[in-house]
């Protein structure tokens, strides 16, 4: 059990400095991101936004400790990230992140068990509470292969959130969820954040979601990903959906991403 080191709130929890990520295979070299820098402070809900293939997942993997930058450095609390650890929980984009040999209940309980982050006696209560939140209590003893795509993602979300990690890395966690479930999950994430003020690094494709979830938004350019902008979105939530600031920020991001005026999009249809 790592006791968290004393933190100076003026220092970033996670900082990327000129991070370039590359995948090398025998036949091909793919640069995922190029010289990306950003700083995530404690309590930030930091959103990565960018077109498909721009390296968002790669950045998240790098922060989780799975991918070493070929250039630059990525640091957690001032120390270079060398390997993954239970202080950073990750929700992956893929559906096969659950352990097929464990039931839904066990999948959620397992990380808590192996890390010993919570006393044994608390685990059962926590698991049941989170299964309830994701609406899968009835499926507690079912194995993942019997779940639908969205149900799998919800279990993965519960697994990560139940751990209450210092840093939560989420890669499009809500993409497979229907509108209602998505809302509920977003609200749940925000409520949990209010309670424990962990740090979130969140990847999404939805600009609306970015604004609701995020306090800071990093907009990336298309492949290979470079920083396009970093925006402030603090103070926006569900109830700001109609407000001018929300709309203004939304259209600003759309312009950035689409690289033309958002209204002209309808032309794509014609």
């Amino acid at each position, binding site marked *: 059990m790592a006791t968290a080191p004393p933190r100076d709130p003026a220092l970033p929890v996670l900082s990327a400095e000129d991070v370039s990520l590359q995948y090398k295979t025998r036949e091909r070299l793919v640069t995922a991101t190029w010289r990306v820098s950003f700083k995530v402070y404690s309590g930030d809900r930091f959103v990565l936004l960018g077109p498909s293939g721009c390296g968002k997942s790669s950045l998240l993997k790098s922060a989780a400790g799975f991918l070493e930058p070929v250039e630059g450095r990525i640091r957690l609390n001032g120390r270079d990230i060398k390997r*993954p650890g239970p202080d950073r929980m990750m929700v*992956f984009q893929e559906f096969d*992140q659950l*352990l*097929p*040999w464990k039931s839904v209940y066990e999948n959620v309980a397992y990380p808590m068990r*192996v890390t010993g982050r919570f006393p044994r006696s608390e685990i059962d209560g926590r698991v049941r509470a989170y299964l309830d939140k994701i609406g899968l209590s009835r499926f507690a003893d079912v*194995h993942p292969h*019997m779940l639908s795509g969205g149900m799998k993602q919800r279990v993965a979300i519960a697994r990560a959130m139940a751990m209450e990690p210092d840093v939560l890395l989420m890669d499009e966690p809500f993409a497979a969820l229907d509108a209602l479930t998505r809302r509920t999950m977003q609200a749940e994430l925000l409520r949990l954040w209010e309670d424990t003020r962990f740090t979130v690094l969140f990847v999404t494709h939805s600009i609306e979601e970015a604004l609701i979830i995020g306090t800071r938004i990093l907009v990336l350019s298309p492949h290979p990903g470079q920083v396009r902008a970093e925006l402030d979105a603090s103070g926006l939530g569900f109830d700001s959906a109609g407000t001018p600031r929300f709309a203004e920020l939304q259209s600003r991001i759309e312009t950035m991403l689409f690289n033309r005026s958002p209204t002209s999009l309808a032309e794509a249809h014609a």
Partner: protein
Amino acid sequence: MSHTLAADPPPRPEYERTPLAVDSIGEIVRDLSWRERLTQNALFRRIVILLVLAAAWQIYATWLDNELMMPKLSTTLVALWDALTNGTLLERTLLSLQVLVTGYAIGVAAAGILVSLSATTQIGNDLLSTLTAMFNPLPAIALLPLALLWFGLGLPSIVFVIVHSVLWAVALNTHSGFQSVSETMRMAGQTFGLRGVRYIFGILVPAALPAIVSGLKIGWAFAWRTLIAAELVFGASSRSGGLGWFIFENRVALETPYVFAGLLTVILIGLAIESLVFRTLEIHTVRKWGMQR
């Protein structure tokens, strides 16, 4: 492919309904004909296959009419019954099984250690692939001198030879299974802070279980083969030898039905282990988990 543009779909009214509150719907069963029922029964199909094989044996042997080369199934069964009740077949089989299980267990454990090393370190990886490529093709006789030097004449030597036959097959399959574990699953395990042995047993082993089980099956079969062959070479010490020696003795005595009774014992044990141990294992693990159909 010519597309004639379809006419617009007909206009239809919209409608809304109130879904029924169906809390739990039981199984909806379709009637099956007795034929479907039978062909869907695995045990039944298996018995049919066994009966067909038995009939083929009996007919071929009757047609061949050469008891020395291939006795009839009926003769073999009589011999089997005789060897079981009046003879020592049971005792010898038990002795063999004991040696077999010992060797198998050690072999599997050794494979586990080797593969664990190779899963965690680069040099372990190279070691495994090099050792396997080198030693796996070596016949048991190559090990005889070493076995004799290290363990002398007797059961430990047979165990050693069996370990050799189990180890590489199990290690190879397990290793290949580990290598095929999906990157996402690995990463998931690592975010829980699993490392070393806990990572191997918590993630890699269950994720690679289908490959491991088929390695175990192959290892088991080859342990048998090796045992039978090794018992010929190592023979019987003061006490009676095992099943292999039983087969060899009867072969030399030209008691072919008893030879086949011994082989039939091997076959029957093989079937029993497959359906009791391996199938059960599969049903309660990989099939239940949806990792194999």
